[in-house]
């Protein structure tokens, strides 16, 4: 049987979650018993995480078993585990980088309205540039998206901070 991409993904996910379940159980064993107050072992703070970890481990082993029966453990045969990265995947990665830069670098260092204006402008331009170039509307689209970015940045500031008295970062 030639393993499918799904069965390989399930196998890898099963291994990951089995290790995670095992890690949870192992870490829970390091929690002290706390029996000095006269309470029994059943108030042990590691009990519930051990219970969850053990169930995750068992279910993950079932996932590994099922995917192995479908040939998912033969990672080198048949389809690749991940599809070849195309344009949408690259777009997602660019978005992720922009979002992380906004949240982890700009926010807190710049006033929120300015940080969000910069993030929105950069995102609109990066994500739309190719389409504008192909359609020959670069300049017009640029003006439009800068106006939208400014309106949203000021709008968010006004609605949250001034109207609903919610603190912004």
């Amino acid at each position, binding site marked *: 049987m030639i393993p499918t991409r799904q069965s390989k993904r399930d196998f890898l996910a099963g291994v990951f979650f089995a290790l995670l379940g095992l890690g949870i159980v192992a870490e829970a064993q390091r*929690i002290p018993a*706390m029996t000095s107050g006269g309470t029994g072992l059943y108030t042990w703070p590691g009990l*519930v995480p051990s219970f969850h970890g053990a*169930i995750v481990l068992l279910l993950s082993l079932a996932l590994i078993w099922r995917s192995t029966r479908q040939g998912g453990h033969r990672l080198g045969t048949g389809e690749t585990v991940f599809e070849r990265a195309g344009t949408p995947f690259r777009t997602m990665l660019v978005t992720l980088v922009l979002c992380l830069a906004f949240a982890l670098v700009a926010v807190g260092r710049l006033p929120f309205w300015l940080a969000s204006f910069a993030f929105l402008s950069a995102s609109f331009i990066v994500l739309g540039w190719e389409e504008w170039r192909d359609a020959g509307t670069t300049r017009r689209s640029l003006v439009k998206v800068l106006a939208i970015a400014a309106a949203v940045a000021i709008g968010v500031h006004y609605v949250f901070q001034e109207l609903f008295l919610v*603190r912004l970062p």
Partner: protein
Amino acid sequence: MFEGLEAFGRSLAAYATFDAVFTMLWSSLLGVVIGALPGLTATMGVALMTTLTFKMKASEAILVLICTYVGAIYGGSRSAILLNIPGTPASAASCLDGHALAKQGLAGRAMGIATSGSILGTWIGMLALALFTPVLGNVALDFGSYEFFWLAVFGIVISGNLTGGDPLKGWIIGFLGLFVAGIGQEPVHAYIRFTFGFADLSGGISLIPALVGAFGFAEVLAVLGSPKQKAIINAFDSVIPRLKDVFQYWRTIVRSGAIGTFIGIVPGVGEDVAAWSSYAAAKRFSKERDKFGKGSIEGLMAAETGDNACVPGAVIPVLTLAIPGSAPAAVLLAAMLIHGVRAGPMIMIESPQFVYDVVAMMLLASIGILIYGLVLTKALVKVLLVPREIVMPIVFVLCLVGSFAIASRMFDVWVMLSFGVIGYVLRQLDFPMAPLVLGIVLGDLLDKNLVRGLVLAEGDVTAFFTRPICIVLWLLVAAILLSRVPGIESRIRSLAARWART
């Protein structure tokens, strides 16, 4: 009976003010727009609105959230009909017949059917909310630690079983959700677990930032990481709902409303399962079965009635057991806690009027969707045509604000980012998100009640298996788990097929 009607009358009178109607109008509008925009889900809408309503009075804030919730579930039908893209997962079933009708030049009629189905579905669910909440509330008074423990386990098992295509993955992610809820200080000894010396984690992981990440940021990444679909909108006729459609399919409406409400009551299942189940039941009992998928009015009516009936249904366990019936209801529950509303078994004793307030809010929300169903057509089409490259970065800004605003700390933003990335990866691996959410909500309930039950029984685990409600719950859990064991599953399928033939 009459006491209930009297209480409902009082609630209606309390909300018959200019302020309440104005609040209903803007929050329903926001809900409809959020639901209509592909990629923005009801869960995310309700989570974001929770932060916006943070400083409001509880009665006003819950009205905003319910109107947003009802509006978003209805709004999803607009993009399903016009673009063949479900605005929310709940509207996926509406694409089949809704878009087929649109292609025949009947998009207006399809939107009218969606409007009437959604309103009637909300009313059926609302009636159940008014009638069953006091009854279930009284039953819930008999629930002790043992029953609540099993209810939490049952919630995860049924949610994993019904949401997404693979129960095994649903259960894994559900139990991980339970574990995530236990990070931080535990309830008996105040011992700090699984924080690895990271002080911010000692308070635990807040639900709203986690949800905004899993449903908001993950959705932003998923939408922009998928191929672009060309939006083609056909010309449409009148959107005014026709009474003929309602009278002709009244049986389907009542059946779908009942199915939707029931699925709403089941913990953590939600509107998408309600819509598909109502659709499947309508097809099974229809005289026009061959029209399904090709523009069946009955099919669209069933899906829309089912998903909207699920909304009040999902609120019933929120109010009576503090257990959400769907992902948006989980956020609603968190919002109630933030606003000091104590949902749970004591609600019919401590604040029975609040139950009828929620019924009145549902009625107001249904009026909201009627208004926007009639007037918000051309403007909404323009909103639907806004490119996703513009919408999604704006959504991310709102996600960031939404996760920060509750506690004003950057740690919650990091939680949102982490859950967003994890949520995106899990979606790519076909892991459903609803059990994760339910796990995070139910984790504390399970933790406290397992330990409390063991303390009460002095470590004797048989107490968890011998009380009447416990027996029903653990038998259900065992039956669901066993029904998915490969050998047993195929045997059940062959028996069901044999039964269907006879």
